[in-house]
């Protein structure tokens, strides 16, 4: 049954499950968009710089959409949520808070995440929260192009051999340690499924992801490192690294100098 924000706020358990899910979505996109934007002016060529910046803007734009839905459910305003929540209140996967590393690692992380994000959104198309289901249709249209873009980079850098391939292999082995954290749905997975907020649990997300990812590794000529394991810390439960602390510090430096001022 489709439900609106007004209906959902009447049921505390449902509301809690939904806000957790929306924080996961918002925080993933915000962290990644922020990291992407760090490449501005620094990409390997000027054309790539412009393209990557469009992707960064899309990701932050998607974060804004999820944060607005949270505000509808009675959470603070989007700016407040983006800039003033501590690490313990953030629900992004640890993979997305990590620094970019080199171009190979940036591409590998992005592509692995984009496939995951696509699968997650697919599981949200029938979400019982009406405006989420609607928004995801539009977001998926944009993410489709990110997927194509990063698939091209992923495949070609891996196929190029030489230094590029070495760097790609290195990036895969580094990123693999945290990939498993993407699939977690946090503390209230059961409620999310029970209320029909998302159609697929963490195990299913991981399975579907591996099914799609493996052939892409084959195509790129990269060895499949095996099913990712669950990392020690779960970002979906508010467990994070110093990287996120630093990211938040940077992001809120200006607004934090006077939180009451208009900026």
């Amino acid at each position, binding site marked *: 049954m489709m439900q609106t924000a007004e209906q959902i706020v009447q049921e505390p358990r449902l509301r809690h499950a939904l806000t957790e899910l929306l924080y996961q979505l918002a925080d993933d996109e915000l962290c990644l968009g*922020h990291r992407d*934007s*760090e490449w*501005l*002016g*620094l*990409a*390997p*060529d*000027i*054309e790539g*710089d*412009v393209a990557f*910046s*469009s992707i*960064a*803007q899309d990701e*932050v*734009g998607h*974060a*804004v959409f999820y*944060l607005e839905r949270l505000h509808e459910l009675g959470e603070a305003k*989007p*700016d407040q949520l*983006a*800039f003033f929540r501590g690490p313990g209140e953030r629900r992004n996967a640890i993979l997305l808070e990590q620094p970019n590393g080199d*171009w190979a690692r940036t591409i590998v992380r992005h592509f692995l995440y984009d496939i995951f994000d696509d699968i997650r959104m697919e599981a949200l198309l029938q979400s019982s929260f009406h405006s989420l289901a609607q928004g995801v249709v539009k977001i998926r249209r944009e993410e489709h192009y990110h997927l194509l873009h990063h698939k091209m980079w992923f*495949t*070609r*850098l891996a*196929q*190029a*051999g*030489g*230094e*590029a391939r070495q*760097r790609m292999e290195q990036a895969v082995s580094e990123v693999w340690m945290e990939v498993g954290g993407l699939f977690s749905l946090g503390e209230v997975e059961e409620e999310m499924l029970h209320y029909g907020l998302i159609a697929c649990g963490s195990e299913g997300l991981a399975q579907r992801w591996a099914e799609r990812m493996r052939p892409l590794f084959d195509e790129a000529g990269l060895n499949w490192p095996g099913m990712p394991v669950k990392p020690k810390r779960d970002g979906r439960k508010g467990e994070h690294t110093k990287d996120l602390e630093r990211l938040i510090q*940077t*992001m809120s*430096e*200006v*607004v934090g*100098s*006077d939180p009451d*001022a*208009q*900026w």
Partner: protein
Amino acid sequence: MITDQRHEQFMERIQRGEKIEATDWMPDEYRKLLLKLIHMHAVSEIMGAFPEKEWVPKAPTLKRKLAIMAKVQDEVGHGQLLLRVAEDLAAPLGKTREDLMEDLIEGRVKFHNVFHMESPTWADAGVIGWLVDGAAIINQAALLSTSYGPYARVLKRICAEESFHMQHGENIILALAGGSKEQRRMLQEAVNRWWESLIFFFGPVEVTDAARRMIDYRIRTKTNEELRQQFLKKYVPRIHSLGLTIPDPNLRYDEESEKWIFTEPDWKKFGEIVRYNQGPKSQERLKLRRFAHEDQRWVREAMVRSQKMQVV
């Protein structure tokens, strides 16, 4: 003899207001003057991304974050458009895009003085959009009538985007000007910091030989001083209307000559900053460009290799 005739015909075309296209015959001097101008313009756009880029991760609201990301992206995009124009001009001289980028890293091409300077506060991000881009628009709008067609067309798009940037900067400025005491202080300091650079930005008062030749060829149609006066006319009242002061005790409008009188910037200091890349931020920002270009050569090479493999 044939060359003289060609040259004469070329000058006639220019005087008739015709546009020269990339594949048309053109005097070497024209090509070189244009290339120098557009190359400098292109790398200035690319280097111009850095002072504001520092503030992209720190933009204080989600709206500002999205806006400044898009704004800096536009600057890089302008760099790309201009490089394409420069590449075509440089091709007969045996130069490629890689060479044009290396000229920047090796200090063989200059970029605008303003992008050598520090931008230590959020207010600087606003002032760059408002006044630096404001000055750039005046420069670029004057070039819209340039005799070189490809440059004129690219400039049309750049000017349209720059006017957005100016509004973006003005919007940041207005929030600060109407904000707390601390915000207004930050803003005033940023204006103080940028003023002299802005006056220098338009170049020397006297018309140099190269500038004269560019005017002869209708590459440009206005002198530095005409453009600077246009800037002062437009922005001095705007700055004052926000309750801000301008750090020049001699600044005044002279009714008789109908000109703004201003204190001359330190020509020598800025000249050297631009010529030797020795401004407060020149080397740090060139290092970023070097990282992008040299440390990531492996990426460009890999993409060329894998493209060849796909063709096979």
